[in-house]
């Protein structure tokens, strides 16, 4: 049974400790960057990550919108789990502390933090929390193919054009080096959900689908040729990883969802 304390601990780990795959990715980039500005940025980022862990403070002031991915076996109801998460969110906001980020869209009043929760049934209980900056959320996009402006058709080349366009337009606005999750096909909410979920993958994992794996590496290579760089001030590390997934589509539709994660893509899991 998951408790409020478990979720609070998950928040603290997520907000203050960057996953080792991303941290190592940033360290590798700092070693290989040729631009002095880019190296300086990466070294400051690495120092920031160390301070966060040592002092148990949030890596970034931006809490983002906390997103929970919950797999559960029905021993606890979704309603109970939701209540536990919401209470833990309030406590975490006060204690860690996290910046209150939930703004009433009409009145402008700030009402603490409000998590988004996705449930899925499973034999084993697992809970993953994702936190990333609003800047990286703002540059995320959904394309509909064909796209005449981009000259993008309903094929692999067309998909790649969408992703390059998203990165070009993003420049340094979403805190690069980015982790980019992409999903193709589906209905509109499916590509939004599935592309964001790709940000949970270990940045060094290998896509089981060899065709998608090839596209991931071609995209990564192309994106880093743009030399937008860490913090957007030039350099060869614009993205650390590209993660691509596919789902089925309607005959009339072909969506490409592009979800950006900032370098401070924070994720932590319970039950692994």
């Amino acid at each position: 049974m998951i408790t409020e304390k478990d979720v609070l601990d998950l928040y603290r780990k997520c907000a203050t400790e960057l996953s080792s795959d991303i941290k190592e990715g940033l360290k590798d980039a700092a070693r290989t960057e040729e631009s002095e500005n880019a190296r300086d940025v990466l070294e400051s980022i690495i120092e920031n990550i160390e301070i966060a862990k040592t002092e148990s403070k949030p890596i970034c002031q931006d809490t983002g919108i906390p997103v929970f991915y919950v797999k559960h076996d029905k021993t606890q109801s979704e309603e109970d789990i939701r209540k536990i998460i919401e209470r833990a969110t309030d406590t975490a906001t006060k204690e860690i502390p996290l910046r209150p980020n939930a703004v009433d869209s009409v009145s402008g009043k700030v009402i603490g933090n409000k998590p988004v929760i996705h449930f899925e049934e499973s034999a084993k209980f697992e809970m993953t929390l994702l936190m990333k900056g609003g800047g990286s959320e703002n540059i995320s996009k959904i394309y509909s193919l064909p796209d005449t402006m981009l000259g993008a058709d309903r094929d692999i080349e067309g998909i790649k054009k969408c992703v390059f366009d998203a990165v070009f337009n993003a420049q340094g606005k979403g805190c690069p080096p980015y982790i980019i999750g992409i999903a193709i096909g589906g209905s509109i909410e499916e590509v939004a959900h599935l592309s964001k979920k790709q940000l949970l993958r270990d940045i060094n994992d290998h896509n089981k689908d060899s065709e998608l794996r090839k596209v991931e590496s071609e995209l990564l290579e192309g994106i880093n040729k743009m030399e937008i760089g860490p913090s957007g001030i030039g350099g060869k590390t614009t993205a650390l990883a590209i993660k691509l997934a596919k789902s089925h589509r309607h005959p009339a539709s072909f969506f490409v969802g592009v979800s950006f994660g900032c370098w401070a893509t924070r994720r932590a899991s319970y039950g692994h």
Partner: protein
Amino acid sequence: MDIDFTKLKVGDKVVLNGTIFTARDRAHLFLLKNEFPQIQNSIIYHCGPIVKDDKIIAAGPTSSARMDAYTPKLIDKYNIKAIIGKGGMDDNVLKKLKGRAVYLSAIGGAALIYSKNMKIKNVYCKEFGMTEAIWEIEVENFPVIVTMDSNGNSLHSEVLEKSRNVFQKIVK
């Protein structure tokens, strides 16, 4: 602040000591609609910090592009000397900086590098909430890089053009 910002050039690394004011979207609208003489000749930081018990816990920059539309008017009205943020600002801001002010880049997400040497002096518009309030902060050794100078140069434009060339070759 004891710096002649108009002498700075794109690429210069600077360390700031003195007073800065945070301002985001809502504060910009407030500052344009109301008189707020405290920020005359001052430095604006695009930032919504985490604050607890009157201490700044974390305070990295937010995306400056959201403030593009308000910034030329803000510079005119309050004679702003420098703007700190992330991601750069548009050509209208670059034109307005000419001969009078600069844009300084801080690293997005590196919130603890900046908060370690910050002290709160005052807070205004607290009713806007922690993120959108105007925090008057005393900073020590605040490291930034000049990415838009008062001579019309912008590192962001350079990066944009370079990436555009590559983008156009890839997309064709």
